[in-house]
């Protein structure tokens, strides 16, 4: 009987403590996105109006001023982080042209809301672009019980699209 209770106790531990769940290493995501031949990283500084626009998307300033990205042709890869409820969710986003090509949750640190890592959720972002007021032009279905994580991923995809647009404009 005692062993049974111990088994129950230990089986619930993963749900009661924070643990980083690494689904894919960021460098592996970057490598996959460029078929094993990633370009050198570039850096972008969040300054002036760009910083203000990012702030309006996130509802606060991004956690750092300098962001690195990888770009080849019209495709760019962004590794961005945003807090769902308490801890940052690391997300890899590939933007191609004016739309999203791929979204992948790389590291999940929250105690709940991990359902956003599933392909059925992230596939919704494919081909999504930036509409008016920097909103996504595609409807993203929520996941019950993971609202804050969904909100965080939504913000990050909008941010990646805006950053890509900014880079593309500066290169034009």
């Amino acid at each position, binding site marked *: 009987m005692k062993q049974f209770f111990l088994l129950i106790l230990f089986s619930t531990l993963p749900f009661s403590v924070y643990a980083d769940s690494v689904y894919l290493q960021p460098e592996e995501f970057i490598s996959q996105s460029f078929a094993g031949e990633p370009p050198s990283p570039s850096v972008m500084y969040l300054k002036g109006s760009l910083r203000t626009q990012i702030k309006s998307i996130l509802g606060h300033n991004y*956690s750092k001023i300098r962001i690195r990205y990888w770009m080849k042709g019209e495709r760019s890869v962004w590794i961005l982080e945003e807090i769902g409820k308490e801890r940052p969710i690391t997300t890899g986003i590939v933007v191609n042209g004016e739309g999203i090509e791929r979204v992948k949750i790389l590291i999940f640190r929250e105690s709940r809301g991990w359902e956003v890592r599933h392909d059925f959720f992230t596939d919704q972002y494919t081909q999504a672009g930036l509409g008016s007021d920097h909103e996504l032009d595609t409807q993203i279905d929520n996941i019950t019980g993971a609202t804050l994580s969904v909100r965080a991923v939504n913000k990050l995809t909008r941010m990646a699209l805006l950053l890509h647009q900014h880079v593309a404009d500066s290169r034009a």
Partner: protein
Amino acid sequence: MRFQSLHFWHRYLGLTAALFVILLALTGLLVQHADQLELDQHYLANHLLNRIYGIEPDSVVSFATVNDWVSQCGETLYLEDRPVLGEYHDLQGAVETMTGIAVAVDHALLLLTPEGEVLDHLTTDNGLPERILGLANSADNSLVVRGLNTYWETDDELLHWAPYTGPHPVWAAPSKIPLDLHRNIQQHNLNQEISWERLVLDLHSGRLFGQYGVYLMDISAIAMLLLAMSGVWLWLQRRV
């Protein structure tokens, strides 16, 4: 006679419990809307409360750069006496670089602006070659990082890393911080210890006053149960 006696007890029990009902209702309402009121993001700076909670100031670890002091107290990092956004542990070094102030913290590399904003935060997940244990400036003033196995040098943008092959660098070491700065940092840190949410929750449960506070709240909860039951009983008696 029994009816009058119950009425007497009901009245005085009600008067006694009223204070607790008000306290529980008010704190309950606040707890219910803690997120909207952002109670977890606002702190109380109160010496008496710190004493009640038994909170002592954390120690301060500091590193001197060319122009500034970088310190850690509790989970907060400070540039001079300005807190840096975020929570950090294990401050292991700080040096000035061409791009900003490099800080080794949590085995990662933080780059700060002179105003204390986070310019970049590099970990092994996003660019660092390995966990870092210390920082130094090389003879030509570039950044040298002491990793678990290797010494590394990097470019100004911290984009490319290569094993360092120059002369042995002088690693940044903790220094004694000026007293007034030490005091300001500890005071700021103390002021961040007790959030309004913590206070409201502990008032609601009685834990603010230790185990006896919890017992008091238990008794008041039982008193409220008795009140409800005696109230219903008295009401039924009147109807009969």
